[in-house]
């Protein structure tokens, strides 16, 4: 049995029967075979649950609704692309999911836990262990070397100094930059810098990767390398939420969410097979 359904119906289906989503198609009771090629997602009620999320910026008596009543369900292990025009509220949404920002109203639940419930400390824990963020402008600390940037995230996570070195080096190796460990961000190409940023995002082994236009500042070749890296993280079982302008990039995701004026315009499953 293989059917195509609107993703908005997934939670309803999953609530009464275990189903798997493979390349955007719902499959029967058993986990599918070709797991490497297109990782299966065991549909749960919802891994990330967004309900009536609003973020209003007050800008000199004018209220800007950057995120305006967004409700979404993102499943464990899903690769989601968020697309939309500039200023439509994509980054604001991602920052809310990352716990960098607090919503004006609405709820974000991750694995059943309300992000707002833990308060400030809860958000720090969320940023530290639950999510890894990747930005368009890399956001590396220029005064530190590649490995020190990764180590800093590990230090915040409470990893002791000896383990930090080892883990950071392993992570850089994973993104293919072990030989550049002692280079400063200024000595790295854009693509390399973004790979360091990804290594850093993985420091405390988060199960969610939030990427805000990770290829926006890169040429096609480097962009594709980064995308491949994200896909590999996806295969490893991580939930990826990626903002992008590029339709080709969005196409590798299992679901594309279009945002306009702070609202979800529509959601479309991608039918293209991702190239791992």
């Amino acid at each position, binding site marked *: 049995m293989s059917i195509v359904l609107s993703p908005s119906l997934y939670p309803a289906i999953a609530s009464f029967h275990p189903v798997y989503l493979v390349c955007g198609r719902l499959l029967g009771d058993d986990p599918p075979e070709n797991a490497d090629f297109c990782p299966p997602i065991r549909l749960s009620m919802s891994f990330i649950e967004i309900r009536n999320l609003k973020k209003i910026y007050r800008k000199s008596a004018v209220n800007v609704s950057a995120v305006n009543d967004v409700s979404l369900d993102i499943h464990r292990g899903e690769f989601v692309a968020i697309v939309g025009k500039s200023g439509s509220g994509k980054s604001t949404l991602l920052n809310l999911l990352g716990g960098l920002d607090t919503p004006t109203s609405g709820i974000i639940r991750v694995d059943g836990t309300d992000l707002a419930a833990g308060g400030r400390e809860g958000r*720090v824990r969320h940023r530290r262990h639950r999510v890894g963020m990747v*930005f368009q402008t890399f*956001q590396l600390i220029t005064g530190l070397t590649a490995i020190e940037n990764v180590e800093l995230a590990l230090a*915040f996570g409470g990893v002791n100094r000896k383990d930090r070195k080892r883990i950071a080096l392993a992570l850089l190796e994973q993104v293919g930059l072990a030989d550049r460990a002692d280079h400063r961000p200024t000595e790295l190409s854009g693509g390399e810098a973004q790979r360091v940023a990804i290594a850093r995002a993985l420091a405390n082994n988060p199960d969610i990767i939030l990427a805000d236009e990770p290829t926006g500042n890169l040429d096609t070749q480097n962009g594709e390398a980064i995308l491949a890296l994200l896909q590999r993280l996806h295969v490893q079982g991580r939930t990826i939420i990626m903002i992008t302008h590029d339709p080709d990039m969005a196409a590798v995701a299992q679901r594309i969410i279009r945002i306009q004026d702070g609202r979800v315009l529509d959601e479309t499953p991608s039918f293209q097979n991702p190239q791992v």
Partner: protein
Amino acid sequence: MTTSDILRMAIHNLWRTRLRSSLTVLGVVIGIGALISMVAFGSGMEKNVTDAFMESGLFARITVSPLKLDMNRPVESLTDTSGVSVPLDDELLDRIRRIKGVKEAYGEIQQPAKVGLEGKETTLTYTGVDPAMGLKNSSAELIAGTFLTSDSMPQAVINTQLLRRLKIRLDTEDMAKAKEKDTAKVYTYVLPEDLIGDTLWLSTAVFNPMRMMGALMGNRDETPLSERRTPLIITGIRELEPDGPASRFGGDLLIPAGFASTIPSIGFNSITDFLRKGKSSPDKYAVIQVNVAGPEDITPVRAELESMGLNAFALAEQLKEVRRAFLAMKAVLGVVGFIALVVAGLGIINTLLMSILERTREIGIMKAIGGSEGQIKSVFFGEAAVIGLIGALGGIALGWLVTLAAGSFINMKIREMGETPMDLFYFPWWLLLGSIGFAIGLSLLAGLYPASRAARIDPVEALRWG
């Protein structure tokens, strides 16, 4: 993050902006340097005074004098000491020697007089002492000759203080320069050995009834007093700290008590005698010096003496007052240094605020990758603490150098003036530890506002800075 992580990060961050960091540290260095050299000066002065005092043996001495002067009493009754005071005589001396805690006691005769030596003159109060008490009761060492040898001989032990007042200088190697400078020939230079055996003239005032008549008859030139000169042979010269507490005690001119009692004179006691219209003084001694066995005996012995109706003065008890005065002096000096440190503190605040402004994006990144407000605060506190620590160590070094330079300069001048050099500055351990603690405390205080400001930075805003 551990403390060592924070410190390593702090050093790393400070190194990134080393020019600015070192200027900020310099502010603390100057502040701490000023503070500790000021306090070291106060401590040095105090130490000079208390050390000289301790060495002099005066901490174990009580000086007993006949009566407490009560200024509220009418003059007539002031002269009537019967029943008020015990006479200072040998009987009292015996009683005092029997008090528990008293090691020894001896009487001193003190009279005002004029002395002449090498053709120069000055006035002083000479002291008649028991030669048997020897040097142990004098507050300084002999640099030439011997102590008094006989109770009845016209002998004298002088000290450098008296020589100074007579404008006589001991000719030593140190003096060569001063001698050259003394073009006006104000001073006479002599070898200490040459003074031994010299004659010192003691001029005392005596009451002359014949002249009294003349004065009463209206002859303005006549006073009822006349001068009597007594020759004394110098047996020894004592060295004395120029302004030490010892100079006020022991006397500049010591003569045998037995001989002193034969010198005709009119002193304070005699004036009292005169006012009493012929009743002779019951006091044999001007003062009785009491040496106690240990410092702890001072207070009980003094209380005992006072209960006997005597006036007992212990410098040891005055020392508390001296210490209190020095504490006030150090506090005033400390305030000056403190102001310098407050300025340094403002420098730290300024540096940290600037650094936060520059590193806003970095703070945003730290939050995005899991840094808590507490961790970000401690990063900036770490920087403040390192500034404070380096500043304190540098400040101690600076203070030490400054006091070393100032000390040797001042001592050079002192030597030129022919005086003995001294340690002007003193660094007690509490000053060094205290200034380190204080500098770090102040730096952390200065870091308080910048750190909390850094921690409150909105990461979303901060990340846009890139």
